[in-house]
């Protein structure tokens, strides 16, 4: 019998997702997966990350676990929170100016994206943070997947009040198992708020890491994001910054650190929704061994968003002959008085620079490390918090030291 309502052939991963969504009562999301399946390369925003091929299995839903301990990074003065297999753990009293709570269900704006549907359908409780107007906060959120291989959908919703200043660090870690993490962060910046949002994937090689970050910027808000992929075998972060207030500015940055056998994708879709906003997306990828890094960057400028100033840049550094760096910039501009651009470069370590350092007596391995650090400096230097800056440098150094 012909079944025209089922245009895609569903694999084991999709069948598991559909069953999980149905049992969570998320029938609409289950229907989306049933009809569309996991995105293939024919879905433009997944062009280089074909999930139908890359994600063959989805483990059972993670069970609540209770093993709160030290945060992943030592950051002086930070207030630490933990999400384990999706459940929120608060350690100690929140400082003045920060309200911590939970909200039920997903946090992401519904959009035509399977991972968003799945997260909204499966996230049970979301961590909610409110930074009061004018307050200054450093918050670290450790998102962990523990125990046997598990599928975890967790969510965080953050409001940063008018004129507040916040540094929010999210780390992704967990037990070494074939987890699938589907993480959502919704971050809204009030007028003139200044926010640094750093996410670092340090999960195990066996893990597949998916994150969707949504940002909303009001008038004069300043956002700096740094997405670091340095863990999972398959990682993908999808960024949706929306500049919705005049004077808003976003430095959307990211770093793929990709070793042999890994696939790492950062995809961004920035919306300039009103006039007089600016963004400076800057991404870097370093690949070694047989590995693949992907950066896609789309700038959407609405019809009324005149005087938009936006420049997307992706730079790739390939440390081996088998490494791949894939780059796709896109501009979708409906306004007529804007300055928008994109650029992309890709190459190996510069031979002349290397020779210069060697000629001063610096041994090759050290010289290469210096050049790689130099390549990344543009991303890490702007992180003002000293401890965070140092922690990030440590992660990069650790990645370099593990070799391969």
């Amino acid at each position, binding site marked *: 019998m012909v079944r025209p309502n089922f245009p895609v052939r569903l694999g084991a991963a999709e069948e598991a997702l559909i069953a999980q969504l149905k049992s969570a009562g998320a029938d609409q999301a289950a229907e989306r997966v049933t009809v569309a399946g996991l995105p293939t390369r024919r879905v433009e925003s997944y062009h280089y990350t074909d999930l139908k091929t890359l994600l063959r299995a989805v483990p059972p839903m993670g069970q609540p676990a209770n093993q709160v301990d030290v945060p992943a990074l030592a950051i002086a003065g930070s207030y630490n929170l933990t999400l384990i297999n999706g459940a929120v753990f608060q350690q100690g009293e929140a400082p003045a100016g920060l309200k911590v709570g939970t909200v039920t269900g997903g946090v992401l704006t519904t959009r035509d994206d399977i991972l968003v549907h799945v997260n909204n359908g499966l996230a049970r409780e979301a961590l909610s943070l409110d930074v009061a107007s004018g307050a200054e906060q450093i918050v670290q959120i450790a998102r962990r997947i523990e125990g046997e291989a598990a599928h975890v959908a967790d969510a965080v919703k953050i409001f940063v009040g008018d004129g507040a200043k916040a540094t929010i660090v999210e780390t992704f870690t967990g037990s070494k198992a074939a987890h699938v993490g589907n993480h959502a962060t919704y971050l809204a910046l009030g007028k003139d708020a200044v926010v640094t949002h750093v996410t670092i994937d340090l999960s195990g090689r066996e893990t597949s890491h998916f994150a969707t970050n949504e940002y909303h910027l009001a008038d004069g808000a300043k956002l700096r994001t740094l997405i670091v992929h340095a863990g999972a075998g398959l990682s993908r972060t999808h960024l949706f910054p929306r500049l919705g207030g005049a004077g808003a500015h976003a430095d959307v940055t990211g770093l793929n650190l990709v070793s042999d056998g890994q696939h790492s994708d950062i995809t961004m879709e920035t919306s300039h929704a009103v006039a007089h906003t600016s963004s400076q997306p800057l991404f870097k990828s370093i690949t070694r061994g047989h590995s693949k890094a992907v950066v896609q960057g789309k700038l959407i400028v609405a019809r009324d968003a005149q005087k938009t100033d936006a420049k997307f840049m992706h730079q790739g550094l390939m440390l081996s002959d088998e490494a791949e760096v894939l780059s796709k910039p896109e501009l979708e501009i409906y306004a007529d008085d804007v300055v928008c651009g994109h650029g992309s470069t890709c190459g190996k370590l510069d031979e002349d620079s290397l020779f210069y*350092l060697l000629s001063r007596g610096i041994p090759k391995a050290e010289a290469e490390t210096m050049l790689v650090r130099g390549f990344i*400096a543009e991303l890490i230097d702007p992180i003002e918090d000293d401890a965070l800056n140092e922690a990030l440098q440590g992660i990069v150094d650790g990645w370099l030291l593990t070799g391969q």
Partner: protein
Amino acid sequence: MTTPVLEIRNLHARIEEREILKGVNLVIPQGEVHAIMGRNGSGKSTLSYVLAGKEDYEVTEGEILLNGENILEMEPDERAAAGLFLAFQYPIEIPGVATMTFLKAAINAQRKARGEGELSTPDFMRAVKEAGAQLNVDSAMLKRPLNVGFSGGEKKRAEIMQMALLKPSLAVLDETDSGLDIDALQVVSKGVNALRDGKRSMLVITHYQRLLNHIVPDVVHVFSDGRIVESGDKDLALKLEAEGYANYGGEAA
């Protein structure tokens, strides 16, 4: 007899299939400053790169002895630790690498290779300050990434400052005068002359004689078509300036 600081014997080198050095012989005794003059394309800069060990060049014949030790099998960093310093004609800009970080790494790497302890931070800072003062390298320059945004003169001053810090036994100065105005030339020359201590040897590669008014050489060699074709005292440079390189044959550049 004291071992010469540099002895080059019948050096042949090529890049890809093209032979550029065609039998270079040169001896620089301790403490002497030798100049190599030659037209563009004669292979002068190639000689400096081959001395420093740049990978692109293949040595097909001959020897290079630095303080009696054959350095041809050494990596560039090992040659540096053995006492060789090349002041680049075009110092490389390296964004993201802080000048101070670089200087410290270079000094300590060389000390380590020679079995000496690392320089303490205060000692390092003092050494940089002293060397910088002499060459008008101020702290603003040192705070910038390595050579990034430096003017031509600043780059050359920074090169000589590195030389002062690294204290090589042989300094090779590749067209150090190129891109310098008179004032910068004087500062750089003063810095170089301050490092002439009767022990350190130098090989000054230049196209023009004017540099040799400031850094007065003990011996001048004329380089043409991949080898030294004539040697003499500093007056040879004046003769070259007056007559040009036409008398030395080879292809015009």
